[in-house]
Every structure is written in structure tokens, then in C-alpha cells.
């Protein structure tokens, strides 16, 4: 088979959703990819590593190969019998799959949560309180003369962010790096910080204090401290001046802000700072979303249930109370009696106590690859990669929806998330009639 080059493929790794990838396919395999960052080429060239190619079900202590029909039947029986099944993951699959997932949780009266709850959940909690002054990434590329990364390290986590959308990009009104200022605020001098015009290093777990001091300085209030969060006050006041005097400022923040002490309060303070800055200049804020479709998971869940994650269907209607209905809390309290994990690895990513509970209930996983979670599962349903082996829609971190492409076929016999979940929902409805 001759080589085939597909251009403008959409990457399905992080929230940047770069859509300029050039993929070379030879003999039905991806052999080369251009314009991709290290993570992206890692996925594009490594998508066949450690694949699960057949459904597996535990019989005794052994995982035995089985068929999709049998595995789906066993899954349907399990989650229908459960009084509080957990449906978790969702950030690495398509909008179409997520929609079916929500209906599954509703039909079985379970919990529906996505990786937001261990990622930018606190951001959303902040938005509920304050709101969010934001935009699509192109606005920043065109207009921003001041860009801040706070508790985020795009060189490592969003490698093309700066060249496509911020300080290294070319916009209509900002033609080059020289037209912009980069400020990095972090507890350590990251590789991103090395590129900054101004780097502010703060003490760990003191982002809230620094944010509040900055708000006060922006408002022109006098701060009666010499040092806040390990930062001298005149540095904070200088920073405030930079913020006020820019024409268009953009604050990007990452898990450094959501995961450290203060959590959602840190974000509330950040959102408030930006809202207040709009009385003096134009300012926007945007969370750096990690998984390629976590924004999609939030959006789909919100239009179907009103809430973006941690949805509880046990009462027959959507309820939402992160801290109570979020996955880590549910599991740590031992509340779920079965779990369906889709495109996620909570055994690796959840704190030990929560992960431990997952291993003590019937655990079903839908995933392309072997992961610690599949290794602990009772039923495994292999699936195809969205954006490589099947199409599907995804949301960029700024809310723009892109349609991904099918570049190659999945491994023989492997189904897509949509196919598996549709079949599962059909069985569940039949069993519950």
C-alpha cells in the first residue's frame, strides 16, 4: 500500500487541540507525524503499544478472553443490579460517547463523574461563585500584550500553547515576541519560568495570599506587610502596575493553583482579580485543561444534567455536590458498589484509599491500553482511539469544538466507545424494563 499523507488532523492529547498535524500512513499504520509536540508524537506513534485486543472477563482469579456480547451482558447485569454504580473517566473520549455515558448513569441511577473532579473541579467551583471573563484562544493570539502563567508549566504540559496561542504566536495586533510580556508565577523555576520576562517565585501553598495581595494592589489599597507569600511587597506592586497598564492581559492557570492549599478559593480569588481588572483594562482568564476532551465532558454533562461533573442520579434527577458526589469522595467513603471506568486510569491517579475501594467492587474498564486500572478490573472492554482509529467530536480548552478524523482502522475486532456504550445502554434498558 502506498503512503498516504493526511493533513490538518486534530491531536487528541491535551486541551490545546492542535489541528495542524500532518500524519503519514503506510500499510495502515501511522509511521510519521509532523507539527506534533513530544506528547502528541508519542501518542501518534505509540498508539499500538500495550493494546488490549480482546474483551476479557475474570473467571476466578484469571482474566479470560471473551466476546463483546458476553462482556457487555455481564456489565449490564452488574450495573443494573448495583444500587450506586459509578461511571467515571470520560475526558479522553468523544462527545458522542460521553452523551451515552450520562444516559447510562441516569438509567441505572448511579453517579456520573469525570476527571475534572481531580483536576479543574476547583476552577468550576470558583466560576459558580464569581463567573469568568474569558475568550477563545485566537483573541489572545491577536490582542494580548501581557500573558501570565500561574501554577502552570506549558513547556511540559501544553508544549505548543505558547507558539500557537500566546507569547510566541503571531497575531493581528501583536506580531512578535517583542510585542508581549510573559510573566510566570510558580513555586519553582520551571522551564516555562526560564522564558519569562518576569518570574515570581512564591512559597508553596501560599497562592491565595499572593492573589489577594495582588487584588489589593490593583485596587490601590495599601498592604501592611513587607513580604506576602515569600514575595516582597514592591515586587507585588510592580506586578500590579504591569497588569493595570497592559492593553490586553491573559492569565492562564494550572493545577498549581487548583491542587494546592485553598483549592477553589485560589480560583475564586484569581477569577475576581481578572473581573476587577476589567474596570481598568481588558483582561481574560483561562484554565489550562489537561486531557483533550475534559472540556467536552464538562459541556456534555452540563447540557444534559445542568451540572459539569460529580452528578448524582440516585434520586432519579441530577444532584450536584462536589465533595460529596465526586468520585474520590464517594470511593473514599466506600459508597459505590460497582464502577465503569471509561478511558481513564484511576488506580494510578486516585489517592490510594479511593483507588483501593475500586478494587473491592466489580470494576469494569473500557480502554484501548493496559493500565493499572485494567489490571485490577473484572471486565475489560478494549476500545478504539478517538482521533486515530475512529471519529468523534472534541472540545478545545476554550470551548471550540472540532471534529476529529479516523486515520487508521482499530486493531481487528476492536470496537469504538460509542459502539460499546450504545450496546450497553440497550442491554441495560432491556434489563430494567
Amino acid at each position, binding site marked *: 500500500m502506498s503512503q498516504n499523507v493526511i493533513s490538518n488532523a486534530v491531536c487528541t492529547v491535551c486541551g490545546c487541540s492542535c489541528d495542524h498535524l500532518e500524519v503519514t500512513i503506510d500499510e495502515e499504520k501511522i509511521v510519521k507525524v509532523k507539527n506534533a509536540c513530544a506528547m502528541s508524537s508519542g501518542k501518534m506513534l505509540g498508539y499500538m503499544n500495550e493494546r488490549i485486543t480482546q474483551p476479557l472477563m475474570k473467571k476466578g482469579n484469571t482474566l479470560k478472553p471473551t466476546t463483546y456480547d458476553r462482556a457487555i451482558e455481564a456489565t449490564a447485569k452488574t450495573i443494573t443490579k448495583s444500587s450506586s454504580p459509578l461511571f467515571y473517566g470520560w475526558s479522553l473520549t468523544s462527545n458522542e460517547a460521553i452523551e451515552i455515558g450520562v444516559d447510562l448513569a441516569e438509567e441505572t441511577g448511579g453517579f456520573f463523574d469525570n476527571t475534572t473532579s481531580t483536576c479543574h473541579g476547583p476552577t468550576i467551583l470558583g466560576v459558580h461563585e464569581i*463567573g469568568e471573563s474569558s475568550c477563545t484562544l485566537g483573541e489572545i493570539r491577536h490582542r494580548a500584550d501581557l500573558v501570565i502563567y500561574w501554577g502552570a508549566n506549558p513547556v511540559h504540559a501544553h508544549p505548543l500553547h505558547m507558539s500557537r496561542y500566546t507569547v510566541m504566536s503571531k497575531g*493581528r495586533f501583536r506580531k512578535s515576541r517583542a510585542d508581549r510580556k510573559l510573566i510566570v508565577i510558580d513555586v519553582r523555576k520551571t522551564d516555562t519560568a526560564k522564558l519569562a520576562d518576569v518570574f515570581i517565585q512564591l512559597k508553596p501553598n501560599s497562592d491565595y495570599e499572593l492573589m489577594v495581595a495582588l487584588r489589593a494592589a490593583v485596587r490601590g489599597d495599601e498592604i501592611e506587610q513587607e513580604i506576602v507569600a515569600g514575595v516582597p511587597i514592591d515586587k507585588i506592586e510592580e506586578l500590579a502596575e504591569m497588569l493595570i497598564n497592559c492593553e490586553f492581559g491573559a492569565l492562564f492557570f494550572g493545577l498549581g493553583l487548583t491542587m494546592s492549599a485553598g483549592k477553589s478559593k485560589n480560583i475564586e480569588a484569581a477569577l475576581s482579580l481578572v473581573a476587577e481588572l476589567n474596570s481598568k483594562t481588558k483582561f481574560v482568564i483561562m484554565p489550562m485543561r489537561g486531557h483533550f476532551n475534559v472540556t467536552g465532558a464538562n459541556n456534555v454533562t452540563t447540557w444534559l444534567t445542568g451540572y459539569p461533573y460529580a452528578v448524582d442520579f440516585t434520586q432519579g434527577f441530577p444532584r450536584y455536590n462536589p465533595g460529596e458526589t465526586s468520585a474520590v469522595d464517594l470511593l473514599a467513603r466506600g459508597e459505590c458498589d460497582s464502577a465503569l471506568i471509561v478511558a481513564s486510569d484511576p488506580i494510578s491517579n486516585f489517592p490510594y484509599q479511593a483507588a483501593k475501594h475500586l478494587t473491592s467492587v466489580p470494576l469494569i474498564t473500557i480502554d484501548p491500553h493496559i493500565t493499572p486500572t485494567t489490571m485490577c478490573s473484572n471486565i475489560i472492554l478494549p476500545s478504539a482511539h478517538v482521533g486515530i482509529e475512529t471519529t468523534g467530536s472534541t472540545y478545545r480548552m476554550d470551548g471550540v469544538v472540532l471534529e476529529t478524523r479516523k486515520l487508521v482502522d482499530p486493531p481487528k475486532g476492536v470496537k469504538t466507545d460509542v459502539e460499546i456504550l450504545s450496546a450497553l445502554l440497550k442491554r441495560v434498558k432491556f434489563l430494567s424494563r
Partner: protein
Amino acid sequence: MEKEISILNAFVFDPLNNIEGEKLDVHIRNGKIVESVGRKARKINASGKTMMPGGVDIHSHIAGSKVNAGRLLRPEDHRKDVEIKTKHTHSGVGYSIPSTRTTGYRYAKMGYTTVFEPATPPLKTRHTHEELDSTPIIDKGCFPLLGNNWFIMEYLRDGRLDECAAFVAWMMKATKGYGIKIVDPGGVEVWGWGKFIKRLDDPIPNFDVTPREIVRGLCKVNKILNLPHIIHVHTNNLGSPGNYRTTIETMDAVRDLADGKRPIIHITHVQFTGFSGSSWLNLGSGAPEIADYVNDHNHVSVDLGQVIFGDTTTMTADGPFQYFLHQLSGNKWVNLDVEAETGSGIVPFQYKRTNYVNAIQWGIGLELALLVKDPWRVFMTTDHPNGGPFTSYPKVIAWLMSKKAREKMISRINRTARRKLDLPNIDREYTLGEIATITRAAPAKSLTLMNKGHLGLGADADIAIYDLDPSKVDLENKPFTIRKAFKETLYTIKNGKIVSKQGQIAGNSYGNTFYTESQVSKNLEADLIKDIQSRFKDYYTIELENYPITDNFLRNPAKINCEAEV
């Protein structure tokens, strides 16, 4: 499901076919209205009941990026209003911003069968379609926002009207959109810098084109492309005291382009741009002046944007206005600018009847409806959810039909507002026929939806049967009866199937998404693509190839073809 239904003996209101309250039988086969059916047809006895075509809502924010951002902003809006899952229906939430399934069900229960999302940012319109496709029962469509688009502003600045038309045609195809929406022309681009504009003739910085030129240019483009709807305009200066002048100026800006036959500009939610006065203290109703203009000029149509007292959520593409409202109210605020195209803003808001300004606003919408003489050019909306949730439509109908209902509310509003408004002195009461006009027939006609909004042969069998006996009740004295009847149909029929019966939804069917394709000449199209290709990368952060929505993205696409004149 029955393929044939006969609805017998209802009082039929079908203004497009000049039927006003006659007792008629209406027959349905295979989803259409037909002359007659066989003996085995299911028969619905509708004696003593009122039948109308299914409601057509021309302007309601039900789907897309800002709507969902509103849902996310307000979990408190959802907690107070939940829908429990039933055998046939999904669960849901939401008072002012319902979840998608709840939206479809609630519209169907009220007898509405077609709803248009009036403002979708083109770059994010896939999101709008995802939500529309998630909304059951109703037929739908959406209007892409074009009034702050970089390509369009530059074409108009350079006088390249044909290319502008070709671009709009391309845009309509790429977004699967229905018609041209203009919100705060030029103003949202300026808001991209956090700044504001005031006048129709102020040039937009960096683009050198004025709001007036944008409105006129797109009005001409609309004609060139023969689009089924007319330019749908949210004027500049929304929410500013004295802005009724901007409304009249905007309507007048295209007067010379009229052909005398039908409207060529639609001003939406005109209550919000119908303020007289110069400050909040002396704010008044500009409705009489606007109504005078509308009565004297048949090139204009309007819709109300009626205010409902209570808690709701404002959401529009008018980013600068929404920021202003945030400052005024102190409520939380979401802003979402969209590169090279438009913006949006969301702010929760409460309209209080004891508040002078809110009470005046409440009066403006009703005054407009009652003072505009031609019911074919004034449509009933609340600009859901900006003025109030669409579930409040029965209240609005009661106010329009019953002076008694109005008086009751007037007696409870802010005293100073009561004295200032003309509304207490207006006696007019809408008839059922006029209500049918402003809630179905006229919007359908304005959208040129040939098979909607009427019950003639060949029409889609979208029907609402209300528990109202116009022969027995003098409705103007029974506002509660009006409200109760319009709150919930006895039957709502969609494409010939019963979808709602006394508030019980039959199941999850999905309607069509209407979109427009206006074919320009091949040469013009080729030139346009060459032009866009060279500049797209400079304007957008996605590739041109990935911008257009693919044909199989929509669940039930229904294309409307038009012939362009270029």
C-alpha cells in the same frame, strides 16, 4: 403509532389561511395535513377546544456556548427546579436555563413545535448543533452571528459586496445556519479591547467601517442571497436610556433598501432597546415612538423581549452590555469573546416589580405589542431567558388578551412607573386569532417556513390543542383561564404524532434542524475560497479545512436551498 388522525370539531385559528375560530375538522396522514383520511383513522374529539398550528419561537436562547456557560454558572438555578426521570422522559433541571431535554419537553407541553436559537458564534456553532440535537421533539435552527466578523467588515469597508455575499453564503453552509444575525454591530469588536461605541456612524477602530454600514451591507447581502429570513438585528446601545432613538435610526438606516412588499429588517427584543429618557431616574417607555415608526413603515418587523418579574439569567452576544449589567447589578459575570467574530456575556438578573426601571421595562414590551397595529410584524418573545423563561409565555398571552390581567399587575408595580407608562390607558385586547398570528403564523412567515405555522393542506402536522372554548368564555375577563390553557395543551402533535397529552410527554423523538444553502456562481465561490484560504490562518486558530461542519454532523438536517443573485 397511528398514521392517520382526525381532529374533529375544534375551533380552528389558522391566520395564514384566514381561519379565525371556525369549527373545522383537520385530518392528518403521514405527518402532513390532508384533505381526508380513512375510516380507521384515530379520532380526537376536540369539541369546545381551540386548535392552532404548533408554536414557532423565532428567538429563544436554548443551545450553544453561552447557554451552556450560563447553566454552568448557575447551579442554584437548577436546584430549585428539577424533572424526575420517568419511563418515557429523561430527568433534567433548570428554571431559567433548562437542560436540553427539559427544554424540548417544556416547549412541547406548551404546544410549541419549532424554536430558533437566535445567536450562535460561527466558530463555536458545532456546540450549538450538539445541543439542538440533544433537544427532543421540536424542530429547530440557528442564526450565526455576523455583525462583528472580520472578513465581513473588511469586505464592506472595501465595497466588495458580491464577495461579502459569497462569504456569507459560505458561512451559512459552513455553520449549517439559517439566517443572518447581527448583534451590536461593530460594538463587540471594540469590546475585544474592553471599549465601547455609541453611535451608528462611529468607525470601528482597525476596520474603518461603521455600524450603519455593517447593517446596510448585510441587508443588501441578505437580498442578494435570497435567504429565507431577513437580517435579525440586536441594535447598538442596548440597555441605555434613550436608546429607542438608536432603534429607530437602525430601522431607518435600511429604509431605502425596502421593496415595499415585505419587511427587510427585524429588530429583536425591542423592549431592551426601547428606552426613552436620559438616565435611570427619568427612564421612560420609547414604545409609542417605535410603534409609530413600525406602523408607518412596513419594511420593519419586531419581537417583544417581554420582561417577566422574577429571577432569570441574561445572556446575549452583546459582551459590552453584559459587562455593564454586571457592574450595575453586582452579580457574577461570564464573558466569552470569540476570535475574529463576536462575543457573549452572561449575568443573572432579577426583575422586581417594585423597581422603577424594571417596571418601566415590563410596560415597554406590552405597550409595543398593543400599539403596533399589524400583528404580522410583531412577534411574542421574552428573549428567553433574558426577559424571563419561555415557560412564562402563558402570562404574556394573558396580559395581551386581557386588560383585566394587565390592570392587576399594574396595580402592583412601582407607583412612579405606573404613572409614567401609557399602558394603563390602552384598552386593546388581543384576540385569539391575533395571538395565533404573533406566536406561530407570523414568525413562520418571517422565516419562510412554508410548511409551518399554518394548517393548510400539505403543512407539517404540528398542532396544538388548547382547553379553551372561545364560544363559551369571554376570555378577556378570565385571564387565569387563558394562562392555564396555554400552559399545557390537551394535545401537542408533531409531524402527525402525539408528543404531549395533558402535560405527559409521549417519548423522545427528535425534530429537524433547518439550515440554508444559498448557491452563488461557481466562479464567485472559487474566488472567495482562494481569498479566504490566503487569510484564514491569519485570523483563526484552527485550519480552514476543519472549520466547516460536516454534512453528517447533524442528527436530522433539513436543507433549504436558495438561489443567489450573484
